[in-house]
């Protein structure tokens, strides 16, 4: 099976879907001539022309709104935010138009579109450009939110997102674009709302999503050397969430750590913990632990940034705590 980057997996997904359906078009800052700030749209302008690969001014709210309107009249726009840190400028369109239009029009106007872009911290981008928006975005009914952590998931989920008749928010990762993984040549789709068991073990569950799936797999591999077997549940989609997958795993392991990139309060992990206590109360041998970003704006200083981010060491400590190994 070919090994390609996350960036190329997204590029393949866009190309295949644009070939498949001429209603699909890509719009955003630097997506056409510059080939994408992160080169996700490389070659698309050449293949599909400037009607379908459209450069915009630096006007997130404006082009997001154009996208919503296009979707309402039958096109299937893919709106790229250079990063979701800029995408918040368009939140009114996402929240007040895209997510509610079907509902408020009594079912007359579906909004089949994708908003996508990198999410979360990269390296030393400081306080304003390091946000993990999963919990903010997943908070609203009316949208779906996917957070692929691997090239395989990125391609399969973006394709499903483009074909979905609802607004789907795709949260990628700047630090993920260069990561590599196996992606089959043959076409495939990954259903939205399905988690994947990325490692199997019966000692402890780690529930995670997005970029943190890689950290969780690292943790599982490291702990395997100490004979600690971890079930890594990669949610992949955070809205709707695959509660069954969480439940199945926690009922097997009786303990869980929830690992996420964002802040603690009202984070994705808080929701996961709620599902666990509701569904698995009698299965728990320890309180569920959470690993997340420190409750501060992301520091610029390298050492402080490292301390603020969730990582493998913190996750291992949490696993040992819920396993009563410390």
């Amino acid at each position, binding site marked *: 099976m070919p090994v390609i980057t996350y960036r190329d997996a997204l590029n393949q997904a866009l190309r295949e879907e644009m070939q498949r359906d001429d209603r699909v078009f890509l719009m955003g800052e630097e997506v056409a001539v510059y080939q994408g700030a992160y080169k996700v749209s490389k070659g698309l302008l050449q293949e599909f022309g400037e009607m379908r690969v459209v450069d915009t001014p630096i006007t997130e709210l404006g082009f997001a709104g154009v996208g919503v309107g296009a979707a309402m009249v039958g096109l299937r726009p893919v709106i790229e935010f250079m990063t979701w840190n800029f995408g918040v400028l368009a939140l009114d369109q996402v929240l007040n138009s895209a997510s509610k239009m079907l509902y408020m029009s009594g079912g007359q106007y579906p909004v089949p579109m994708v908003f996508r872009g990198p999410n979360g911290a990269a390296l030393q981008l400081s306080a304003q450009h390091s946000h993990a928006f999963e919990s903010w975005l997943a908070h609203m009914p009316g949208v779906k939110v996917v957070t692929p952590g691997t090239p395989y998931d990125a391609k399969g989920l973006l394709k499903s997102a483009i074909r979905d008749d609802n607004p789907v928010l795709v949260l990628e990762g700047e630090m993920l674009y260069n990561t590599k993984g196996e992606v089959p040549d043959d076409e495939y789709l990954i259903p939205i709302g399905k988690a994947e068991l990325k490692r199997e073990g019966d000692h402890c569950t780690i529930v995670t999503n997005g970029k943190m799936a890689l950290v969780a797999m690292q943790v599982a591999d490291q702990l395997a050397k100490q004979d600690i077997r971890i079930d890594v549940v990669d949610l992949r989609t955070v809205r709707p969430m695959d509660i069954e997958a969480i439940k199945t795993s926690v009922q097997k392991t*009786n303990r869980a750590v929830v690992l996420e990139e964002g802040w603690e309060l009202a984070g994705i992990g808080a929701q996961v913990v709620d599902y666990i206590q509701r569904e698995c*109360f*009698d*299965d*728990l*041998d*320890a309180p569920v632990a959470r690993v997340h970003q420190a409750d501060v704006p992301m520091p610029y200083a390298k050492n402080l940034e490292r301390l603020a981010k969730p990582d493998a060491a913190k996750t291992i400590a949490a696993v040992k705590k819920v396993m*009563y190994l410390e």
Partner: protein
Amino acid sequence: MATKIFMEALSPTMEEGRLVKWLKNEGDAVKSGEPLAEVETDKAIMELVARGDGVLRKRLINEGDSRPVGQIVGVIATKDENIDAILKEAGGAEAEAAPPAAEKATAQTKEQAGASPVPRAPQQAQAAASTPPQEKTAAEPPPARAPSTPSASSAVPSGNGERTKSSPLARRIANERGLDISGVQGSGPGGRIIKRDIEAAAAGGARGDQTTSDVRRQTSDVRRPSSDFEDIALTQIRKTIARRLSESIGPIPTFYLTAEFDLSRVVEMREAMLELGEEFKVSINDILLKAVAAALAQHPEVNAHWLGDKIRTHYRVHLGMAVATDDGLIVPVIFDADGKRLSEISREARELAKLARDRKLKPEQYTGSTFSVSNLGMMQIDQFTAIINPPEVGILAIGTATDQAVVVDAELQTRKRLRVTMSCDHRAVDGAVGARFLMTLRRLIENPLMLVY
């Protein structure tokens, strides 16, 4: 942190235990879950396991000594830790450990908030165990979990007045295995009882079973007669029999109903089955058990418990069958006997008798009966009276089947006859009630085809 070693309630009815043998010396390093000593309960020899890591610093009782449940019998601590306070506390508890067993349970439940140096947890178990273990059988499946009630296990008060903390999973497993969580010492943060503690406690019990046969072999070697008489110390089971049975014949106004049944058709039935092949072989006793169970199902008024302030009639028949073992009498239970086929009863009776003789019965296998049967037929006893096993209200004593000359249709014939005597607790069962049960039983035994009706 030092860990006190308590005399734990190792069986649901245990009130005191005799420490048969220390398995660790003072100064030995011990790990949580490791066996420390062998303890003879009222039913079996079990292992007392360590509930903490460290060094066995002090053995507070000698081999052969008995202590009530909840008493401190030793201390585990780190090598240099000061354990004077605990030793002092144990000394105080020792002095207080005198009141007779019956008073004790009530006294302890009353003084819940008191500052007795002995922690509450094991005593709670004891108090729970002294109420009839069948409490819940009417509404629930066989009382595998009789010894613990869910409400007790979720918030068991401990010695310092705090809740004993336990994980939901630990509580669930304890419930499923019928373990009383209050006797378990937690190894999690703040003493939280977690899954591994329950598993260690359960494994401790299982290991105890394996060692019993060895211990028995040793004691029987010692018992070779060497003089005109021999003083045999009372074993826990003997004490329990004495206490329980005098409890029975004393306060229970018992009367006896004897009937003689014609056993010919049972004998025929058994022989006919045997002719079909060895796999259909059942004993006379199996057929009698089946018949008693069927009769009890029709007479819940004798399939009942006397509970002091009420009579509880049971609609499920959990039939106790007295088994003689080298150590004494024990009554394993065939649960839901009325719903079981003859082949199942036969197999189960055989298995339970073997487990009883091997002292491998688990507590849940000998608690929860609603009526009992005692058969001395194989000992050539013509008829006898058996003593009621409270809180049951009746027991059936079965004698040996003998050939008798009887008049049948105005002719003298030789027939197999069987004498049974039912002991009835008159507080719950009147003569006519018991007699009606025996009439039903007679119809079934004299016409065993009714058993398939």
